[in-house]
């Protein structure tokens, strides 16, 4: 292990550090070599490892599915086509079940979200040390392989979904309809003076309701994956505590990994389903 010389705390910190590219304090652009440097970079920095893995996995997803889509025939499907069709039918069924409007964007959106997040989550099952160790040997100081343990990824996707929610809310209901939805409920009144009285409380409640959607989407996924990753790291720390704890840690890791497969799939599914449901709400005149 590359971390044998480090204390546990340093080991964990090292594992939670992204490979960050940004403006260093001396004015030049480069890769940060520690948490302080990352802090100095501020907002205009990017996590190279996060983006590389998430975009890479996204492209892998698109490549595989595009391959199947190009070869797709109505005849007897081959192995890859069979698998892809199974996923597509599963997504299609879920979307049909929870989305009542007509929008050609929603099903492909759900497919992208599900498969992409699933793949990103699945990176969690790679052992926490091997890839960073190899990267370290190749001269890369930090490497986090699970993009969904980076809040930037989950918030990035959740904000994109939020943008779609706002876009379709305004598109379907009109700006007036959307604003009416924000101000005329949940307290409803028959006369205009009373409506004015309720306007502010309603706006406050509905805004919270609206803002809660992307935040809960992002934090749910991030929290689950971050916690899972953290536990893998802690188990990995145990490997350094003698053969007894080490072998126990091996057992723990196996058990946690098996359990984590469930979380990986479930979180991808929840993110997808909630996105579809939110978009469905955005498409409905009154809910």
């Amino acid at each position: 292990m590359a971390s044998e010389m480090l204390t546990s705390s340093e080991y964990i910190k090292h594992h939670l550090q992204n490979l960050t590219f940004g403006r260093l304090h001396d004015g030049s652009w480069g890769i940060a070599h520690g948490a302080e440097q990352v802090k100095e970079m501020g907002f205009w920095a990017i996590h190279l490892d996060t983006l590389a893995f998430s975009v890479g996995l996204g492209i892998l997803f698109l490549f595989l599915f595009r391959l199947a889509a190009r070869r797709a025939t109505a005849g007897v499907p081959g192995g890859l086509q069979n698998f892809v069709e199974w996923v597509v039918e599963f997504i299609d069924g879920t979307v049909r079940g929870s989305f009542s409007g007509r929008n050609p964007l929603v099903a492909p959106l759900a497919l992208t979200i599900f498969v992409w997040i699933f793949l990103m989550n699945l990176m969690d099952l790679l052992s926490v040390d091997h890839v960073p160790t190899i990267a370290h040997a190749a001269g890369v100081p930090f490497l986090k392989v699970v993009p969904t343990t980076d809040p930037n990824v989950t918030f990035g996707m959740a904000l994109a979904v939020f943008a779609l929610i706002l876009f379709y809310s305004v598109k379907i209901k009109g700006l007036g309809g959307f604003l009416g939805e924000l101000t005329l409920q949940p307290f409803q009144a028959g006369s205009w003076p009373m409506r004015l009285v309720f306007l502010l409380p309603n706006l406050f409640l509905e805004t919270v309701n609206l803002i809660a959607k992307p935040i809960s989407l992002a934090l749910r996924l991030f929290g689950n994956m971050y916690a899972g990753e953290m536990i893998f790291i802690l188990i990995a720390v145990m490997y350094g505590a003698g053969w007894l704890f080490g072998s126990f840690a091996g057992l723990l890791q196996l058990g946690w990994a098996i359990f984590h497969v469930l979380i990986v799939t479930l979180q991808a599914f929840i993110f997808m389903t909630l996105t579809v449901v939110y978009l469905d709400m955005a498409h409905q005149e009154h809910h």
Partner: protein
Amino acid sequence: MNINATLIGQSIAFFLFVWFCMKFIWPPLTRALDERKRTIADGLAAAEKGRREQELGEKKALETIKKAKQDAAEVIALADKRAAEIADEAKANAKAEAERIVTAARADIGQEVNRAREHLRRAVAELATAGAAKILEKEIDAKAHAKLLEAVMKQL
């Protein structure tokens, strides 16, 4: 664990991926699925139709066989009847012919008998005439006694 521009990059990548998926992945896959569904439905319908047609054909074949058997039985019955008729006709013809032959033979025999009787009558008359002449010792004038002779011949 900092929020930074990665967020924007991720959002852009997300939109690009969704766009790509919507443009190049989802439509051909769902099209293939729908097409296969249709093909299967058509195949099942065709199989059902074929089955019904086969049933119909079998029924028709059975009917045809039944009708053929009936026809054959009719033909056989007709042939039997005709054969019996022909046999009866032949029998009747043979009987008539036989009767005709017998009748002709009888007529011939009658003629022969008459002729023989005539012949005998003439011979007896001559014999009687000759006998009478001997008795009378003189020639009977044939011309004078022709009438008498005729009467005698008639009595024989």
